[in-house]
């Protein structure tokens, strides 16, 4: 396999100026600052030029190295500001690197935003042509794919309506449809699937998977670990402009999630993966009122609600749940055999099944935790039926006991203190 993208020692520096509140430089500021500096120089001709306090350099990317093979699908994860978008912008030649070198083999198309260049006054038809040209399609190519694009976007009746009259859903569908029909050898996609309704998202994901299956290289940025896990076998984790980890998606994503509960929600949904005989579709943490929450207190139970889709009856299927501290300390382990009487996941009917796991109050101490979940079945073709890994995070506060959040140790269990009977 040939290397599609080789990135060597890539760095990108931005200069942030603190003083001007405006987004852009005004000539007047440049002139007045220049004049000030000149006046200072006249007053103190031998003073060393001082550092400009209003400016600060910021390395959005620093010494990035990686190789991507042809046909690989690679996810890029990281917090906001980790440099993901900058990396994509450099790869798609929108901005130039400060130093380093990238070698790319093949035609690149990048989709950093859905609907770039769409003009509200123009009709759907006109925008398809315009957007196609902007994304680098030739006229002949657009003509050839026109019907396919329209069918994918489901906007047949509105083709000759200006897109300003479109609903936001229609707008996004049309925009994505154009982009989805690009035929590059390398496709670079920023978080664009976060838009549109769930059904259309599913369609987009399917399209992206097709692109990957056709042997094209895909680079994909997302905050949705479920989507990343499904779409990309390999994953790059960026942190503060550097590569923190790179490798198999499962391990990278788990390490990333463990790294910060802040990046986790009290809820997570997963796109369909029809290869799995049983799949976790949705997990949510509920407070005692049944609302999805991420912050809990020690005095109330935490309900973990699972929605599991069964596609094939699996005798002996069981669920496994573990709770970790963000540093990786394994705090608690439980599986569906804990139900004692009968394993509730055993031999479920096909369809969506809902479960609840309840953690009684006053068990864990205050702090941050993450939840790991997986399902296994000894009788299935694949023992590990579904391994979503770390799916949720929550924080616990101890409000009621005297020591409260000062309490040390792993547990918040209140021991029984009593006076001996006389």
């Amino acid at each position, binding site marked *: 396999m040939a290397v599609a993208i080789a990135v060597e020692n890539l760095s990108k520096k931005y200069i942030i100026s603190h003083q001007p509140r405006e987004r852009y430089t005004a*000539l007047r500021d440049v002139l007045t600052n220049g004049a000030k500096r000149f006046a200072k120089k006249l007053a103190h001709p031998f003073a060393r030029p001082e550092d400009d306090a209003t400016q600060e350099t910021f390395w959005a990317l620093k010494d990035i190295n990686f190789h991507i093979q042809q046909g690989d699908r690679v996810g890029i994860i990281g917090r906001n500001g980790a440099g993901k978008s900058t990396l994509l912008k450099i790869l798609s030649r929108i901005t130039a*690197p400060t130093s*380093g*070198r990238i070698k*790319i083999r093949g035609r690149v198309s*990048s989709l950093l*935003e859905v609907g770039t260049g769409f003009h509200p*006054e*123009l009709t759907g038809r006109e925008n398809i042509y315009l957007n196609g040209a902007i994304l680098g399609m030739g006229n002949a190519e657009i003509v050839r794919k026109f019907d396919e694009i329209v069918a994918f976007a489901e906007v047949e009746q509105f083709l000759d309506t200006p897109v300003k009259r479109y609903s936001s859903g229609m707008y996004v569908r049309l925009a994505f449809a154009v982009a989805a029909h690009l035929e590059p*050898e390398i496709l670079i996609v920023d978080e664009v699937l976060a838009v549109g309704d769930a059904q259309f998202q599913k369609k987009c994901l399917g399209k992206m998977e097709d692109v990957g299956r056709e042997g094209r290289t895909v680079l994909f940025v997302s905050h949705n670990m479920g989507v990343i896990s499904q779409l990309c076998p390999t994953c790059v984790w960026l942190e503060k402009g550097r590569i923190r980890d790179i490798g198999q998606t499962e391990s990278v994503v788990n390490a990333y999630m463990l790294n910060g509960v802040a990046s986790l929600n009290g809820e997570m949904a997963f796109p369909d993966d029809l290869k799995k005989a049983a799949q976790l579709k949705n997990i949510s943490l509920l407070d005692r009122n049944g609302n999805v929450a991420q912050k809990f207190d020690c005095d109330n139970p935490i309900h973990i609600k699972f929605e599991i889709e069964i596609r094939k009856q699996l005798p002996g299927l069981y669920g496994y749940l573990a709770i970790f501290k963000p540093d990786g300390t394994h705090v608690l382990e439980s599986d569906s055999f804990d139900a004692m009487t009968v394993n509730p996941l055993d031999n479920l009917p096909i369809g969506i099944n809902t479960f609840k796991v309840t953690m009684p109050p006053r068990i864990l101490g205050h702090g941050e935790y993450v939840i790991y979940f997986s399902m296994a079945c000894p009788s299935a073709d694949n023992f590990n039926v579904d391994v979503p890994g770390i799916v949720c995070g929550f924080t616990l506060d101890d409000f009621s006991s005297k020591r409260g959040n000062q309490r040390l140790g792993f547990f918040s269990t209140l021991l029984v203190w009593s006076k001996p009977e006389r």
Partner: protein
Amino acid sequence: MQTDELIIEADSTERHYWKDLWRYRELFYFLAWRDVLVRYKQTAIGIAWALIRPLLITVAFVFVFGKLAKLPSDGVPYPILVFAALLPWQFFANAFAEAGNSLIANANMISKVYFPRLVVPASAVIVCLVDVLISGVLLIGLMLWYGMVPDWRIVTLPLFLAHAVVAAMGTGLWIAALNVQYRDFRYIIPFVVQFGLYVSPVGFSSAIVPDQWRLLYSLNPMVGVIDGFRWAILGGENHLYWPGMALSLALVLVIAITGVWYFRKMEKSFADVI
């Protein structure tokens, strides 16, 4: 599909530039087409705007310079003298303004998609040619009305039009690139357009400028362009002032070449600062 290898380095994103510019020619057509469509889409009288504006200015100038100031008209009807100059001037003013603002107007595209940025101001200039063509029809109508038939010189008109295009492109590129960095330049655009109308020989013939000042007057590159248009369209006794023409051509070329150079130099940082 051929596999072309691309190397991105700090200073050499340039190698494929001109080839890329050619590859993105369709984007260039589409942007121009979009701007033409959008310009007239929500207007009640649409294309007629391209006729009404120059017509009204012509009426005003004929009244002020021809009737009130009684300036000479080189033996042609005053409206035609004015209109023949207004054609290149309006083109220049529009193209310069559109090109100068084009990058800012397309900021979103520039920060999200790669393409040679030269496409944007270039297509803005081309769009303004459409207006020239429409106004040109009006000029033909006026000339028919006055019973004027252009002589052989009319075939040189495309050369002078090219001269105007290069002038608008060069100045437009400078302003567009500067405008991204320093937004002050958007205030310069209307000023240049307004001021230029007075210092260019639009409402009067440049023959009224005393001979010893003629070369100095030609430092305004639009003087050469406008004189050229008049020479080609009006024919007859209209003489071309060659030193001024040469000076204008040289200036325009220098502005255009440095404009492209400066634009290319700044282009890499457009997405970062826009």
